C-alpha cells in the first residue's frame, strides 16, 4: 500500500494536475477568504469563509480524484495493478491517502491566510482550529466520494462531474432542514453534512460528527473496493 501511496503522491507532482489543483484551491480559497474577511473589514466573518469553502470543495476536490482510478482504466494500467502483489483495498487506500495528503497539505498552506487575521484583528485561534479540523474530515469524505466515482468510469471528466453532483446533493440536503415535520427534520439533520458541521463553528469538537464523516468516507472507500473486486472476478 505504501508503494502505491508513494507512487501516487509522486504522480500528482510530475504532471501538472497536482499543481493545477493546488493553484486553483489557493486562488478560490484566497478569494473567498478576502471576500468574507478582509473586504468585510469590521464585519469580517471567518465562519462564513469556512461555510463557502465547503461548497468550493464540491468543485475542487473532484479535480483531485477524477483521474486517480479512471485514468488507470483508460490507459489499461489497471490490469497491471489488479494482478500486482498488492490487495485491491491496499491499492485503493494507497491512492486515497495520497489524495488526502495533497488535500491536507494545501489546507495547511492555505491556513497561512489566517496570519492576516492575526495582523489586523484578534481572531479566536481555537475556533479556527476547530473549523479546520471539521473541514479536514469533510474533505476526507468528499475525496472518498470522488474516488468512488473515479472507479466507475474511464473518463475523468465524467468522474469529476459525477462526484460534483453527488457532493452537491449531499450539501443540498441541508436546505431541507427548515421543514417543519419533526421526524423528517431529525432524519435530515442526521444525514446532513452541513448540520454535522454546525458544532465546530462554535469551537466544539463533536465526536459523533467525526464518526459520521469517517464512517461515510469508509462506506465510499468500501464501495470503491467492491467495484474493483467485482471487476477482477468479472
Amino acid at each position, binding site marked *: 500500500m505504501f508503494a502505491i501511496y508513494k507512487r501516487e503522491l509522486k504522480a500528482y507532482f510530475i504532471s501538472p494536475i497536482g499543481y493545477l489543483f493546488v493553484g486553483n484551491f489557493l486562488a478560490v480559497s484566497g478569494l473567498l477568504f478576502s471576500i468574507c474577511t478582509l473586504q468585510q473589514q469590521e464585519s*469580517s466573518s471567518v465562519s462564513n469563509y469556512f461555510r463557502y469553502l465547503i461548497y468550493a470543495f464540491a468543485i475542487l476536490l473532484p479535480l483531485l480524484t477524477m483521474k486517480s482510478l479512471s485514468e488507470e482504466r483508460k490507459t489499461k494500467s489497471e490490469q497491471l495493478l489488479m494482478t500486482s502483489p498488492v490487495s485491491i483495498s491496499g491499492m485503493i487506500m494507497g491512492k486515497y491517502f495520497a489524495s488526502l495528503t495533497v488535500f491536507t497539505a494545501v489546507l495547511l498552506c492555505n491556513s497561512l491566510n489566517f496570519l492576516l487575521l492575526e495582523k489586523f484583528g*484578534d481572531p479566536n485561534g481555537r475556533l479556527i482550529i476547530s473549523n479546520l479540523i471539521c473541514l479536514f474530515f469533510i474533505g476526507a469524505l468528499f475525496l472518498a466520494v470522488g474516488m468512488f466515482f473515479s472507479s466507475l468510469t474511464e473518463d475523468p471528466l465524467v468522474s469529476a462531474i459525477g462526484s460534483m453532483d453527488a457532493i452537491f446533493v449531499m450539501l443540498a440536503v441541508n436546505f431541507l432542514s427548515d421543514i417543519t415535520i419533526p421526524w423528517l427534520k431529525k432524519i435530515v439533520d442526521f444525514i446532513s453534512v452541513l448540520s454535522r458541521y454546525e458544532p465546530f463553528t462554535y469551537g466544539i469538537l463533536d465526536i459523533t460528527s467525526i464518526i459520521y464523516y469517517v464512517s461515510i468516507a469508509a462506506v465510499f472507500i468500501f464501495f470503491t473496493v467492491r467495484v474493483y473486486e467485482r471487476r477482477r*472476478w468479472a
Partner: protein
Amino acid sequence: MNNINNDKQRNAVTKKLKYGSLSMGFAVLVVVLCIAVNLAASLLSAQWSLRVDITDDKARFYTISDGTKKLFEEYFSETPDWHITIRFLAKEEKVSDNMVLELARSYQSTFDGHIDLEFMDINTNIDKWEQYCELTQIELTSYHVLVEGKYHTRAISFANFYYTDSESGETVAFAGEKAYTAAMIKSGIKENPVAVFTAGHGESLDNGKYPLASYVGLSSEQLSQANKLSLFDTLNDMGFEVQVLDLNESELPESTRLVFISDPQRDFMDYDPDKPDVVSELEMLKNAMDNYNVTLMVSVDDETPELENLSRYLSLDYGLIYHSNVSVTDNDNSLKGSGGKELLGAVAAKNSGSLGAQIVKGFGVDERFVFNNAVKLSLSTDMSVQGEDMIVSTYSTAEAEGKKDVYPLVAYTLQANAIEDDKGTDTENKEYKTAYLFGSTEFLSSEYLNSRFSNRALLESILRKANTVQEYVAINEVYFIDEGLDITTGEARGWTVAVTLVAPAAVFAVALVVWARRRHA
C-alpha cells in the same frame, strides 16, 4: 468435450453469482453497520457528552483584573472598613443570569471580608423592594443587581453587563467587571463629578438618533435606563453623574467637570448688552471653564451649521475652528461601501510631553479611529491662543475642498489659568482648562464606541487626562467572538490581490515548467 465446456461455464456463472451476491451482501451489511455506528454514537452522545469544547475559556469572564485589585487594595489600606454588598433581587437559585452571578461570586472570594453577596426575594420582601426603588429611583425587578456602598446604592440592570452590536442586535461582549467595579467606586464616593450634556440647541447623539432635549431633567440612573447609549454608559462607568441640561433654564452644578456639546443646530446665547443682568449660556460656560476646572467637549459634523457665537468662542478662546459644510472624505482609508465618508484616523500627537502625546501614550502606531461625515477642522494661528494641537488626524489621502492633505479630526487646546491668591494677585499655581473639538458627531456613537476601532479607548484616555475622573480603572470588556478587522479599504484591496493571485500564480508557474519539461523530455 462438451461436458468440460459446460462445467467451465457453470463454474463461471456460480463464481460470478457467488461474488456478485457476496458483494451485494457485503455492501448492505456495511451500510447497515455504518448507520448502526452513527445511531449508537448519537445515542451515546445523548447520555454522555461526546463533545469537546476547545474554546472552553469561560474563566476569562470571571477573572478580576489587576487594575481592580490594585485599586481596591488601596481602598482597604486607606479605609479598612471599606465594604460593599452585592445584592441580587431573587433567591440564589432563581438568579436568571449566571454570568453576572458568577462574577459577583468571584468578587466576593477575591475581596473576602470587604465584599459580600446577598440575595433578597423581592416577591416576599415588598417593603424592602419599595425602599430600594425609592433609593435608586428605578422600578427594580429580579433582573437588577444592587451594589451598596458607604454613600450610595447603585442598581445595575443585567442588560447593562453586556455590549450589543447596534446593527445586528447580537450580544457581543460581557462587560461585567466594568459594570461592577464602576458601581463599587461610585457607591463609595460621596460626590461624583457631573458630566453635563447641553440641550436646547437641537443637540443629539448618534447622528441625530437621540435628541438630547428629551432627556432634560432625568437622573443619571434614569438616563442609563432610558436608552442604551454607550456614551452615557462609558461616563457612568468612569464615575460621572450624567445630566442633560438646558443652560437657559438651569445653571451648571458646581461639581460639573465635563460639558459636552453634541452637534448643536442652533446657536448659544452670548452676552447681550441689552440684558446686562442676564447671565448668558456662553458666559455661564466660560465662568465654569475658568473656575471649576471643567473640560469642554464639542462635536460637530459636516452638516452642523455655522453658529456665530459658539464658533467665535471656540475660535477666540481655544483656537479651534470647524468649517461648516466642508466634508472630509478618504477613499483609500475608509470603511467599505461608505464612499469615503466613514474615514479612518490615526494618532497625530507626536510632541512628547504635550497633552496630546500623553493621551495617546499607550496607543500603538497602528491604532485606528473611525469617523463619519467628518467636517474640516483647523487650528487658529492667533498668538493669543496657545497650546492647541491635534490628537487624531486623517491620512494624507483624505480630501477636502478638492485638496488631498492631512486634516485634524480631534483637536484640543490646553490653557493654564493662573490662580489668584487672597489678595487677588496671580500665584505660581495653575489650573488648566481644556477644550476638545471632534470633527464627527458619530465618533462617540454607540456603534463606534463598541467597535474594534479605538474610539472608546481615546475617549477614556481623554477623560483620564482631563483630570476629571478621580479614580478610574481601565477595564476591557470580554468579547464572546471577535472577528472584526482593523483594516483599511486600501490594505484590504492589496492583501486580496496577494492572497488571491500571488501564491496561485507561483504554483501555476511551476505547473507550466513541469508541463514544458515533460513535453520536451
